[in-house]
């Protein structure tokens, strides 16, 4: 239901952020997230940064699969 794309925060002003998703720049709402800073990575869905991204999917996989076995 929800296409999301990771993007890097370039600058922030009044609850708005300009993000860069692999070279595609777009101004979006940053109002859902507190204490965002330029350089942070966020998940973007339909013009809103819905979550901060911490780490990459590879490390996440390592942790989860290691825990499992």
């Amino acid at each position, binding site marked *: *239901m*929800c296409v999301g794309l990771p993007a890097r925060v370039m600058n922030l002003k009044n609850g708005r952020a300009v993000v*860069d998703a692999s070279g595609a720049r777009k101004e979006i709402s940053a109002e859902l997230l507190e204490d965002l800073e330029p350089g942070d990575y966020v998940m973007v869905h339909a013009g809103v940064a819905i979550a901060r991204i911490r780490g990459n999917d590879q490390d996440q996989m390592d942790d989860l699969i290691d825990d499992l076995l």
Partner: protein
Amino acid sequence: MQENKRKAVTLAHGGGGRQTNELIHEIFKKYFDNPDLTADDAAVLSMDEGRIAMSTDGFIVSPAEFPGGDIGKLSICGTVNDLACMGARPMYLTCAFVIEEGFPMEKLDRIAASMARTAEEAGVRIVAGDTKVAGRGQVDGVFITTTGIGRIPEGVETSGTKARPGDVVIVTGDVGRHGCTILLAREDFGIDADVTSDCAPLSGAVEAMLSATPDIHVIRDATRGGVGTVLYEIAEQSGVGVNIDAASLPVDQSVRGVCGLLGLEPLYLACEGRLVVIAPKDRADDLLQVLRQGKYTADAAVIGEITEDMPGRVTMTTEIGSKTLLPPPGGELLPRIC
């Protein structure tokens, strides 16, 4: 008074009288002049013996000018590339303009200049033309139709029906850039990215390939519908399957970003300067070598192969090593959000 008249195209410019003549002289003849350009009702041309290729294409693009090109350049490249895909060396073009009343004269001048530059680069002469002016709102700016003919050298026989299992599939550069450029230029989505159209004349690239080997089975210009649509057409026409390796497909990083935001598939975005080339596997290295020396084809890559199984279908080997079907082309490209 005289100044004003020159600023925009008026219905009188399409009336066939003095003002039409003025327009032809001040813009079209200025740029297109060559010994074969006719002042009569039709151009009279001499052709060598042998086979000729002939093609026609209409061009509508909004906006008319975009990063990397404009409708003029597009209208020359489109027909030149269609001819080149049959292995033909493009020789002569005609062009017909339908211009919206009020279209800025200056812009028309730029478009004509761009056509002349592109034609010169492609080694093709514009030999006849036509101008009509339509009332405001009846066309969107300017529409251009070009028709061209070219000569096919001996021993060259390319066709969408000739792909054979075992052949390699080459694209001559990264895919989807033109479509992405236009999408961004329309400013509907407030997305900004450094993407320029790949619009380019490819007759030189085809000539270089044919001089490396005439043994090329299919050459297709991946325009509207993109590389994905072309691959499906070839699979259908030749009754073969096409398998592409997702990882080897060249896509510009920014195009990928835009596609990611809007949920679009780069394989279905238009190109205007990319060929899909299908040739026997043992010719691949020779072809890549000449392509990589070309001005517009430096990023050429083998992206897959022709298979016997799954005839009429295009499959992809995915990043996790399984095989999936490329969704068949369909309808208008709509950004997918939810």
